């Protein structure tokens, strides 16, 4: 960009040097977590780091099967999947009309929806806890499902509006000419075309649910506890089970990184679009 045409040799060298240093800084901690998760406590608790050792899966066995972490993962999945499906259905009902129709007040609706993300969740946590406990919903799935749907809906509307707007109008008009009703045309022509957008938006929503901690920590206890809240069992001031902590952390982080690799382009678009155009 700043040296149009062929970049000079020094430019190439600095670019690589900066890139390598940045990658080391950003990736080493993750590598270290995974490495520690396959060590024994004795190997992890040394004043000089141990790099050569016989890896063990004992920490994973302990975490997943003996400490009940798999139950928390199950809770996270159920809550995340249901909230994401709800988010997608609701988001489509708003995003499609906003993208397709020249609605009076459409711009105001869009900015209002996006402005909801400004409210810090901590501000609503106290009243929500009281409301949900009066409804006997604390430590039940619906409380978190409702909150996660609410949390992800604005971004989902924003992303899907973009995907709907990308569909050529002629396609829909052709369907109308062929005698489809607007609703029939929507389900037969439009919806199949935005499947990639739905998948990307759904994945993003799923990741946000999976990583969320504040609502989960306040609104769940024993039964509906999610994986991030499960991690707090280890975060005691005297906690020394570091190898197990790193195994549990790896279990939480790894699926997101794998999914992230596949949908990176969409995620970048989702995260950057809201910021650059918003």
């Amino acid at each position: 960009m700043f040296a149009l045409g062929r970049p000079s040799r020094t430019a190439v060298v600095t670019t690589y040097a900066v890139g390598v240093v940045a990658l080391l800084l950003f990736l080493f901690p993750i590598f270290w977590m995974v490495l520690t998760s396959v060590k024994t406590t004795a190997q992890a608790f040394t004043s000089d780091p141990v790099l050569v050792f016989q890896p063990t899966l004992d920490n994973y066995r302990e975490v997943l099967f003996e400490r009940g972490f798999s139950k928390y993962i199950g809770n996270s999945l159920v809550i995340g999947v249901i909230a994401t499906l709800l988010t997608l259905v609701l988001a489509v009902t708003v995003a499609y009309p906003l993208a397709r129709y020249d609605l009076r007040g459409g711009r105001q609706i869009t900015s209002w929806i996006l402005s909801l993300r400004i409210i810090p969740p901590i501000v609503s946590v106290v009243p929500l806890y009281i409301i949900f406990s009066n409804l006997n919903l604390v430590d039940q799935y619906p409380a978190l499902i409702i909150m996660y749907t609410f949390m992800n809906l604005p971004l989902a509307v924003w992303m899907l509006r973009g995907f709907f707007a990308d569909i050529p109008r002629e396609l829909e008009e052709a369907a109308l000419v062929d005698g489809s009703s607007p609703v029939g045309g929507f389900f037969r022509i439009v919806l199949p075309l935005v499947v990639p957008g739905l998948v990307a938006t759904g994945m993003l929503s799923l990741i946000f649910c999976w990583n969320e901690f504040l609502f989960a920590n306040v609104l769940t206890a024993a039964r509906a506890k999610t994986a991030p809240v499960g991690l707090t069992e280890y975060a005691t001031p005297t906690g020394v089970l570091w190898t197990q902590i790193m195994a549990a952390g790896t279990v939480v982080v790894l699926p997101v990184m794998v999914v992230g690799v596949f949908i990176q382009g969409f995620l970048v678009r989702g995260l950057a679009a809201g910021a650059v155009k918003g």
Partner: protein
Amino acid sequence: MSTEPQALPINRVGPVAQPGPVRGRRIGPYLVMLPALLFLLAISIAPLLYSLVVSLLRYNLMNPDRMGFAGLRNFQLILSSPDFWNSLLVTVEFVVIAVGLELVLGLGLALVLSRDVPGVGVFRSFILVPLALAPVVVGLLWRFMLNTESGILNWVISVLGFSRTDFLSNTTLALPIIALVDVWQWTPFMFLILLAAIQALPHEPFEAAAIDGASTRETILHIALPMLRYPILVAVLLRTIDAFRVYDLIFMMTRGGPVNATDTLSWSVYNNGFRNFNMGYAAALSWIILIIVTAVVTVFIRLLAGRAGETA
């Protein structure tokens, strides 16, 4: 609301004047949107109104019998409490250190890695990995690396000839260290937004600068940065909103301590509401936070509107 002239009712009536679905003035689209909009409205407004009520109460979950109307007592208590002003200061310090460093590092990385060098895509992608991590895991991971006896960072420090330090138990260092952890996780976000903005810049000004023989430094300072003002402000706004909420890292790394060195506003609400069970006080504090956030965002948006107007 709308000041649009009402002069064209004829065009809006009947299906004949409206070929295709695009210019529909029907009620259908609004009906389709209604459930989702009502849902958003209910979940955003109801808790705020309810917490306004709670903020006027003497309401401790441990002492439900003593519940009663307290007027503005909770607000008075908060504003006259040194803990609140400490929390405000801690939060501002955290936001300034974290977002400031994220901007400098993210912008620097974006400028360097915007060069089209073979293989640069690998760097651009892998830098984004920390964004995918749950903040709770990030907090635990860094706490482990900072551990005095066995943490790898303290090993590096000892190899360099300094003495091992218990950073998170140090009232001066704990907050900046947590801010640095935030920098580690969110610099990639700044990088992502600013890289996209740089790639979207028009080529002509840079070609002109190259013909005039401008140095890279001059080109960046006098051409690129002025054109990037708007995306920079947006990125800083988004990160400020987010950093202001810091809670996960505090919970996992210090729980507000040592003493109250990392007692941010978010942590303070949690601590008062869910560890001291003082719901009235916590609800009042929530409202004060909401007012602060709204004020900050309004200032930002004024700035944005002004800047956007200049360049447009």
